């Protein structure tokens, strides 16, 4: 049996280790670049050709990034904007998609099925395709260049996925459990919080992760809808860094900015990998 199983493996053991180690090195190399570049001293970060290893450890690039030498809106404020918009959109998406999902699954009303399918149909059209009229709508209601506007846009475009993800866990719950809670004197909303929400928790966490990552990393809409540097989120802030101040591009500070943008995502992924991966598989396959 062992010989059969080993024959099912596409490559022999030693080769497998060599291939995977080299590939892992290749995949991790860009992470090494951003890390080493951002902890070099600003002078070393500008060296040509670049040094392979940082000669000394320095917070210099981060200091330059955060001290805002060039006036105008600083990176700290833009980091704050990103946190505000991403966390806000995440919370709003969770609350609204849980409520909507509960309504669609448990509190049927006339036309609810039609509305449910209309909601899912929005999957078919990504927001890049509607950005021009979306800009006009936001412009009309005074929400361009407004963090609340960006938060609402991100919420809107993550809602269908959240509803879709949680639909399965809500539908899988036997209605008798909910009914028992109702008979025991729970109100409908309390029944939802006490009985349905615990079942939906994995879906809620996956939805939260997806919304957070999507909002944190989103570039296109933020680039278009935010026109004032003090309203930029991190990806657009990187764009400002890359266009340089007074014609010189500070690559050390830019890579420090990239590091600040990447680190929260990696941290969250490492902590909550199970939910992220699970949600991705559910979302794609069901």
């Amino acid at each position, binding site marked *: 049996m062992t010989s*059969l199983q080993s024959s*099912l493996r*596409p490559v022999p053991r030693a080769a*497998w280790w060599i*291939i*995977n180690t080299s*590939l892992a090195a290749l*995949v*991790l190399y*860009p992470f090494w670049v*951003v890390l*080493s*570049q951002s902890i070099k001293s600003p002078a070393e970060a500008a060296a040509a*050709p*670049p040094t392979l290893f940082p000669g000394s450890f320095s917070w210099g690039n981060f200091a330059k990034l955060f001290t805002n030498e060039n006036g105008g809106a600083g990176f700290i404020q833009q980091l704050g904007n990103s946190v505000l918009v991403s966390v806000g959109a995440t919370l709003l998406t969770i609350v*609204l998609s849980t409520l*909507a999902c509960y*309504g*669609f699954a*448990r*509190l*049927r009303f006339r036309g*609810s099925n039609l*509305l449910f399918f*209309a*909601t899912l149909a*929005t999957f*078919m059209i*990504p927001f*890049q*395709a*509607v*950005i*021009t*009229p*979306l*800009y*006009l*709508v936001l412009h009309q*209601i005074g929400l361009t260049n407004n963090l609340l506007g960006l938060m609402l846009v991100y919420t809107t475009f993550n*809602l*269908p996925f959240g509803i879709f993800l949680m639909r399965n866990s809500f539908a899988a719950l036997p209605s008798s459990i909910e009914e028992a809670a*109702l008979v025991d004197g729970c109100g*409908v909303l309390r029944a939802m919080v006490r009985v349905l929400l615990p079942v939906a928790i994995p879906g809620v966490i996956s939805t939260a992760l997806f919304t957070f990552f999507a909002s944190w*990393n*989103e*570039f*296109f809409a933020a680039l*278009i809808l935010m026109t004032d540097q003090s309203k930029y989120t*991190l990806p*657009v802030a990187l764009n400002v860094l*890359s266009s340089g101040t007074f014609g010189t591009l500070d*690559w050390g500070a830019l890579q420090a900015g*990239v590091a600040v943008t*990447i680190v929260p*995502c*990696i941290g969250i992924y490492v902590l909550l*990998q199970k939910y992220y991966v699970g949600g991705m*598989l559910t979302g*794609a396959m069901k």
Partner: protein
Amino acid sequence: MAHNTIVTARPGKSGRPSVPMRPLKRRRTLSTSRSRLGAMVVSPALILLTVFFFLPVVLMLWMSLNRWPLLGKISFIGLGNYSAAFQDQDFLRAAGFTLLYTLIMTPMLLVIGVALALLIRRPGKASRVFQSIYFLPVVVGFAAAGYLWLFMAQPNIGPMLDLLTRAGLASHSDNWFGTFATALGIVCAMVVWKVAGMQMLLLNSGLQSIPVELEEAARIDGATRTQVFRYIILPLLRPTLALLLVFSVAGSLLAFDQFYIMTSGGPANQTITAVYHIYRVSFQGFQLGYGAALSALLMIVLAIVSAVQMLILRNSDHN
């Protein structure tokens, strides 16, 4: 329906009005209040979707029939924007480039995804660790990844170029963003780095659904490794492959961030994608009507891709 009946018993036919009357009334109010509550809890989500999605879609179709500058007079021109689109050399070139990018990216991602998925298929902790490493770039945003790779490949100061120079494969002064092929190549490399992990993950779960006994039986019957892959794994993997195909086609057709950040559409506007062109028309030229028409065309193409996806999903459900 079931939830209505539990609240109260149906009124009997026994003709004792005083007892069944109350439950009947209670049942009705409970069921209407339930559906009223349903409409209520669904409405916040629907209001957002209406204002920021359905309304823009309708508005887009209307805008596309007008000359619509950001400031100034709006005038109805019928299908003028659409006929202009098919004569707009810049748009046609952007559409052509987007198609080329999609044709390069899609098979490359599929092949690399399948290779990675087969590699990490071995049971054990090591293969789970490698899987996590390969997936890591997926959580990095396109903007961060773009600026990172932009730096890595910069002439003179780029660390990746430096490594390749040390290995004798390049020269410090090479400007990869200066020619079309190398600029596109470096963007593709970045996207593979960032996306292949996701393809691997989805393929891996597809592979796991294939029973090991099937392969073992084929091996006992004398099938070679290539035959097992060709005649057993590949056909059973088809629904997953089809799904990934649709994902990467849709993703590539919408490409913007990577080209805006890494090539700025250059050299000589050769790497401007469809979405990039729409961005320039709508938000640099402020021809919102024409931008809406181009967006509508893009939306139709993507709706077709999505329809294909649904068809694939439905077929795989029946299997």
